[in-house]
């Protein structure tokens, strides 16, 4: 068992435990902070996968922007404890469905076959050229139009958020 495997196992334990905490914590703030931890774990995975740009974006966008937004909302609405839980049969049904999902994905993993590498991007290349540069090249050539469309999506989201959240004019 080499050091990277140990590290991977460690990160995995943290990720799963924090993810479970997201679901189980009564206080939403605790859930939110657990989620931040999960996001950091994912960023670590990205780094381990030799995708440093994705790791950075993960931390900036998710752990930074989105989580700040969520925490801010929780504080703004002053939500303390999820007082009234769902009925037990709902929890049971939901858990069953979650476990079925897990089994199903597990089945896909055992039965599925992964194809051999098709692209020319190797770790050496990433190390030599830099991950960000590679992503940027693809993003601004092949995916230029989707990229621009995303900006419109974000604009619409901003406008929608403003309209939804603004105080009612009386």
């Amino acid at each position, binding site marked *: 068992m080499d050091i990277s*495997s140990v590290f*991977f196992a460690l990160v*995995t334990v943290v*990720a*799963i435990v924090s*993810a*479970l905490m*997201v*679901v189980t914590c009564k206080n*939403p703030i605790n859930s*939110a902070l657990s*989620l931040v931890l999960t996001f950091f774990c*994912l960023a670590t*995975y990205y780094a381990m*996968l*030799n995708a440093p740009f*994705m790791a950075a*974006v*993960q931390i900036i*966008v*998710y752990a930074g*922007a*989105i989580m700040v*937004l*969520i925490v801010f*909302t929780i504080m703004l*609405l002053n*939500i303390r404890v*999820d007082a*009234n*839980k769902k009925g037990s049969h*709902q929890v049971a049904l*939901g*858990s069953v*469905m*979650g*476990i079925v*999902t*897990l089994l199903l*994905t*597990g089945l896909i993993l055992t039965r599925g076959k*992964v*194809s051999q590498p*098709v*692209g020319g*991007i190797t770790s050496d290349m990433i190390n030599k050229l830099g991950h960000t540069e590679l*992503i940027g090249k*693809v*993003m601004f050539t092949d*995916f230029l139009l989707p990229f621009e469309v995303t900006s419109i*999506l*974000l604009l*619409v*989201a*901003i406008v*929608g*958020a*403003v309209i*939804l*959240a603004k105080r009612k004019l009386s």
Partner: protein
Amino acid sequence: MDNLNNYLIVSAVLFSIGTIGVLTRKNAIVMFMCIELMLNAVNLTFVAFSRHLGNLDGQIFVFFIMTVAAAEAAVGLAMFIAFFNNRESIDIDDANLMKW
């Protein structure tokens, strides 16, 4: 990339945990966070596959998912605030105007 399977297993576990969360919690914000968790699980799959296949398209896709998630967060949280202003509650069971 011999450990592709490891990543996929982690991703599956996280996805399932997210699903359970969405289906068992009542608090809208927690449900929202669980959805983010599911999205991240999928992202991990994308990145892992992208690296395995040596093709950057998957990572570009992750980038777009993040954008959508950001937009979703902005609009969704604004909706929660509007909902809270109306009902003094963030309990998803109180949002039941669409019933028969």
